[in-house]
């Protein structure tokens, strides 16, 4: 389906090296996901299920937390709202996935933020295509490897409070968010959402506070879209 040595030649070693570095980082995010998910009580088969079937980091963290809180409906709703951003991203890279249906169907599943970002950063269609496929395939593979490694670590740790895994989880989420929060509107939205979610936790049923944080979008402001900020958040 994709010839990796051709991909490598098309991109040049510098871009390929950058993509590999991001892939390794994503592997560690997958490791955190696997460890945190089993420590929360999700059985290993379901943890792997999330990583293979959903393959969208942020929404996997969110869904696991909300299912564990006892609200599967909020888990689905929150996860889908989180992944709604994939729609405009997909529109932006649709030309990269033109060609045979088999390619299109498979390539669609590999559409994580990083693959879109690397593809859009390339100057011409052949290189856009190569960057997309290299990022997508590599990140999918390393995400699964990381998830499985994390499952072993999480099972060994047991109680998340031991070794501070419960503190690692929110810190991991903030690290995922940071590229967007460095932008003024992102910071404003993030802070308001955090306050609303925490405050509403004292009366709203489990799972709902995180969704209520979406009211922060009212403070998004109206400045125009900057393509260079089209990165990350799982």
């Amino acid at each position: 389906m994709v010839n990796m040595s051709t991909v490598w030649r098309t991109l040049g070693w510098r871009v390929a090296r950058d993509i590999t570095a991001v892939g390794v980082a994503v592997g560690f995010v997958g490791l955190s996901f696997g460890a945190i998910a089993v420590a929360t009580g999700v059985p290993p088969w379901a943890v792997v299920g999330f990583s293979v079937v959903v393959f969208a980091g942020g929404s996997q963290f969110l869904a696991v937390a909300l299912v564990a809180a006892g609200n599967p409906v909020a888990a689905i709703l929150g996860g889908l709202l989180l992944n709604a951003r994939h729609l405009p991203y997909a529109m932006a890279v649709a030309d990269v996935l033109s060609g045979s249906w088999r390619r299109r169907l498979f390539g669609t599943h590999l559409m994580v933020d990083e693959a879109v970002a690397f593809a859009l950063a390339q100057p011409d269609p052949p290189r856009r295509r190569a960057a997309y496929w290299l990022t997508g395939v590599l990140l999918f593979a390393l995400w699964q490897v990381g998830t499985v490694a994390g499952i072993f670590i999480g099972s060994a740790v047991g109680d998340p409070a031991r070794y501070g895994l419960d503190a690692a989880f929110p810190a991991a989420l903030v690290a995922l968010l940071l590229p967007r929060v460095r932008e003024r509107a992102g910071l404003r939205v993030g802070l308001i959402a955090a306050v609303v979610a925490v405050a509403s936790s004292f009366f709203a049923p489990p799972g709902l506070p995180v969704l209520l944080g979406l009211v922060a979008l009212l403070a998004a402001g109206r400045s125009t879209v900057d393509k260079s900020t089209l990165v990350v958040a799982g």
Partner: protein
Amino acid sequence: MSATSLVVVIAVLGVGTYSLRFIGVLIGDKMRLSPLVARLLPLGAVALLAGLAATAALLDAGHFTGAARPAGVLAGVVAAWLKFPFIAVVVIAAAISAALRLAGVP
């Protein structure tokens, strides 16, 4: 957390996410989203993850947790802000809160 609810969440979230991606591929450049919508979708992701991070950092089943967890998270956030690698952020957060608990902080 029942096996059935897990299967349903994984299946619906998986199919839904794939559909969002695939619809975007099918639309391609045949249609344009309004700039406002294109801007709000990624910011919505920020709102959800920030809300999750804040509640996970501060609360346990609707009550404030002890100080060890938020302190560890804060250390991780500072590390992330200083552009430490992801794995360092996670390890610092975990290590600080584990150390505080060892020292008797709840």
